[in-house]
């Protein structure tokens, strides 16, 4: 097999006014004809720099100081071009870039110009590299859009990117990259910003187009699940160097380098045993101090950081509900038209949602973007007012209290009992406050303890989340993403809440850091008998941490069941589609691309009976098995009031 691309001993440095920073060194690998090679690494590993070097898109300050990138164009047999030597914006490089080597990017929204139509942007690529007229370019664009699976390719030419969904935008991006039929496609995290079902569709599409056009793919990703399903060979990058390279099967089964091993161990995989633990690169050992143990009646487990994982979560404790949400609904109204004649349209964001969280358990809430899971969390926090329904919460008195009718003053004592950890570790901490101030702030707001108590508490919280108390006077910018998320967790714990709500707490983090945070959350829950509502789009993560899982789609909960039950026996078509679409980093559970259906999965009107939801039928939650509920119309299940 001839190689399309051969990178040898590549070294890229950033030349700054006072120093040179090496981004990539000693990188060598090759990409064969029609082969998919995955470049795997965490953020900052240098994998994007390698792709930019191939494309000649390195930032101005970056220089290739050593090595070669030999491109052998199969269309011109025998010619070899060293891309590292070419002038980045010269004519020769520009002819290859976009013509023979194309690239797709992570963010489908920002990668396309919002001011130009899809047709304009695709035809531009055609006309740059082929001598064709406007009409012919249009033809080629339509042909490519059809191949990519656009519903109405002709109309699509005249649409603007913002009129399309995320999945369609990425398809348009792919069409633009493919339209010149390149020999090599560089795909930089092509599905990271997409929902799982869309991700599966796009991955399938890339595979199909690849065999159709007979091209090679360089897939840059941090997601080992995607690698397992897509790549023939993989190259693992760490700190700007290649630490391991080989056939995907070989590397997965028998990883040679310690980093690869730990990366594989850090990914939550399918059906992990209840005692199985993720192994992050660096484990955090939470230490509970006196203030925390004081309030905790669950003895035996406290003060003992190293508890065998088998003691995790006794189901016996999961009896008393802390939070009970009943038939909660919330709609947003959009206004279209002018102020003389305006149309109000109600868009339901949360529709008839009921969910119960018992003391000491972790309930996972899974759904794709826009399904209403964040709105639901905001309703529970009473950051938004629900339209109908009730939120019952067990206060300090032990009585269930209705939260929906309370005004701000009455609500205040309950605010203390429910705390929130946000998705974005950068945006959720005030950059002008020290860690000490950030963690102590909730206690000050609620007037908890005196300053000595707060000081002691902050110290204990730092211990609890595994941060050095010497960091207390630092500001958030000096911490990494994972450390910031731990500060957020410490802040949420400072009031000793009864319920913690996590909204995608690990989705902005690398896998190894994610494993660290997930383990920390598990340990904290066990040691302090905490109650979690864990919101995520990542089924594997929820599978790892949650005891019960509720699946949400289009504002409704469609299925809820204990963890093993849901994964073993999913009943609802949406749950099944979701499970089918998750790429697990496990060669024994590869994606079945034939089962992936386009777009139908998340449209309630297109679910088969008895699950269909449309104008005429509004199914309710039915009991399917013990503790296993499904939203369905009838029959096979018995209806129970929940």
């Amino acid at each position, binding site marked *: 097999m001839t190689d399309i691309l051969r990178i040898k001993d590549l070294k890229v440095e950033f030349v700054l006014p006072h120093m040179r920073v090496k981004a990539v060194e000693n990188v060598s690998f090759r990409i064969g004809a029609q082969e998919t090679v995955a470049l795997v690494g965490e953020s900052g590993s240098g994998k994007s720099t390698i792709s930019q070097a191939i494309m000649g898109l390195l930032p101005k300050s970056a220089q290739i100081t050593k090595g070669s990138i030999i491109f052998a164009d199969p269309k011109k047999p025998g010619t070899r071009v060293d891309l590292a030597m070419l002038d980045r914006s010269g004519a020769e490089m*520009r002819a290859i870039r976009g013509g023979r080597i194309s690239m797709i990017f992570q963010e489908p929204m920002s990668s396309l*110009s*919002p*001011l130009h139509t899809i047709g304009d942007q695709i035809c*531009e690529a055609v006309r740059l590299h082929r001598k064709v007229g406007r009409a012919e370019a249009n033809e080629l664009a339509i042909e490519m859009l059809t191949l990519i699976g656009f519903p109405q390719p002709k109309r699509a030419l005249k649409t603007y990117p913002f009129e399309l969904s995320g999945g369609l935008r990425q398809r348009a991006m792919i069409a633009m990259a493919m339209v010149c039929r390149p020999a090599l496609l560089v795909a930089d995290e092509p599905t990271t910003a997409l929902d799982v079902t869309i991700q599966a569709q796009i991955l399938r599409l890339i595979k199909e187009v690849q065999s159709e056009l007979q091209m090679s793919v360089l897939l840059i990703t941090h997601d080992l699940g995607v690698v397992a399903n897509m790549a023939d060979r993989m190259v693992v990058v760490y700190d700007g160097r290649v630490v391991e390279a080989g056939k995907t099967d070989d590397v997965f089964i028998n990883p040679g380098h310690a980093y690869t091993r730990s990366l594989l161990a850090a990914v939550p995989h399918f059906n992990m045993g209840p005692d199985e633990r993720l192994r992050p690169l660096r484990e955090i050992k939470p230490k509970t101090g006196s203030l925390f143990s004081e309030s905790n009646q669950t003895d035996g487990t406290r003060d003992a950081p190293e508890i065998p994982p088998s003691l995790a979560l006794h189901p016996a404790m999961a009896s008393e509900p802390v939070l009970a949400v009943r038939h909660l609904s919330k709609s947003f*109204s*959009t206004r279209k038209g*002018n102020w*003389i004649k305006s149309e109000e349209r109600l868009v339901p964001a949360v529709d008839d949602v009921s969910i119960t969280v018992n003391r000491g358990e972790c309930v996972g809430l899974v759904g794709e973007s826009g399904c209403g899971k964040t709105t639901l969390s905001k309703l529970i926090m009473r950051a938004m007012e629900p339209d109908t329904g009730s939120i019952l919460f067990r206060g300090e008195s032990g009585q269930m209290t209705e939260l929906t009718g309370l005004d701000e003053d009455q609500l205040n004592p309950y605010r203390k009992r429910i705390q929130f950890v946000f998705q974005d570790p950068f945006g959720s901490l005030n950059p002008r406050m020290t860690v000490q101030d950030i963690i102590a702030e909730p206690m000050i707001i609620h007037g908890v303890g005196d300053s000595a108590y707060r000081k002691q508490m902050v110290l204990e919280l730092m211990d609890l989340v595994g941060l050095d108390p010497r960091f207390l006077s630092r500001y958030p910018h000096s911490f990494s993403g994972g450390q910031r998320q731990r500060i957020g967790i410490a802040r949420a714990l400072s009031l000793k809440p009864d319920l913690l709500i996590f909204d995608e707490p690990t989705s902005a983090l690398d896998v190894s850091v994610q494993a660290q945070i997930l383990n920390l959350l598990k340990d904290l829950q066990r040691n302090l008998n905490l109650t979690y509502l864990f919101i995520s789009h990542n089924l594997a993560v929820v599978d790892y941490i949650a005891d019960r899982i509720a699946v949400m789609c289009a504002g409704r909960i469609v299925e809820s069941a204990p963890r093993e039950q849901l994964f073993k026996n999913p009943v609802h078509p949406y749950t099944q589609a979701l499970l089918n679409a998750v790429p697990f980093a496990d060669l024994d559970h590869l994606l079945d691309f034939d089962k992936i259906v386009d777009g139908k999965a998340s449209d309630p009107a297109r679910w088969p009976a008895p699950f269909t939801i449309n104008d005429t039928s509004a199914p309710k939650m039915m009991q399917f098995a013990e503790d296993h509920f499904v939203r369905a119309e009838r029959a096979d299940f018995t209806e129970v009031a929940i």
Partner: protein
Amino acid sequence: MLTYLARRLFVMVPTLIMISVLVFVIIQLPPGDFLSTYLNELQAQGEAVDPAKIEFLKRQYGLDQPIYVQYVEWAWGLLHGDLGFSFEYNLPVTDVVGDRLWLSMVLNFSTVIFIYIVSFPIGIYSATRQYSWGDYGFTLLGFLGLAMPNFLFALILLYYANVIFGTSIGGLMDPEFINQGWSFAKIMSVAEHLWAPVVVIGTSGTASMIRRLRANLLDELSKQYVVTAHAKGLSPTKVLFKYPLRMALNPFIADIGNILPQVVSGSVLVSVVMSLPTTGPMLLAALQSQDMYLAGSFLMFLALLTVVGMFISDVLLAWLDPRIRLQGGVMK
């Protein structure tokens, strides 16, 4: 699109009515009116004032009527192109203003065009060659332009033009053409004199626009879609002009509505210093002597410029940016 235009035009009507009420009220706010100011002046000069004459004048000018009647008459006149009567000059406002209005417009539009022509290439250069010597040089010049008051710049220019070249760059035309009818020679004379006030008035606007274009363009240059365009194999210049520059244009177009009245009112001091026959100095005098119809007409003119400018920029934005055109609707 048509309904959008119609709606925008329709909204202008109540806006202008509101402004006219405000203008009228503000002019009337100081105690007294033009006549009392005038009488005081006469009395101060020791001249006898005949009460009958005052009554006659009051009736003549309609000053004995209640304020709202005065307003309605004035507004009604405006609608018919009758700008009212200037007390001070004893002439219809139209005659008083005369050429001044046109000269102001010529001066100010030239200034706006000057600002755009100078600031665009420099802004693009500064953004694409950030932190180069050229960028630093233009930045320095820009800040000088921003920091120096216009009238001071005018004075300096006047002084050096006189000392070095021995010419006077004041005025908008050679003295022999003042109060003459329009002729080709007069137009040429205006063109000759125009550059000095245009440069003086335009510097600060140019400076701030360079800074803004540079900042906007720098923001856009680092966006992902620019990388995409490069990845297609487009040449750098084409990329720059087709994508980021077009995105960076939005704030400028949105600014047209502001820039028109700003340039008109901002040039008052310079006009006084350089004795330009524009509307600025006259507005100042009219406000001082409470010559209410004259002042009112000027202010309405400014308001009209603002509203029309806003309309133009809205239409242009909707035309240029599909997101504005197609993404109607408000989320509540």
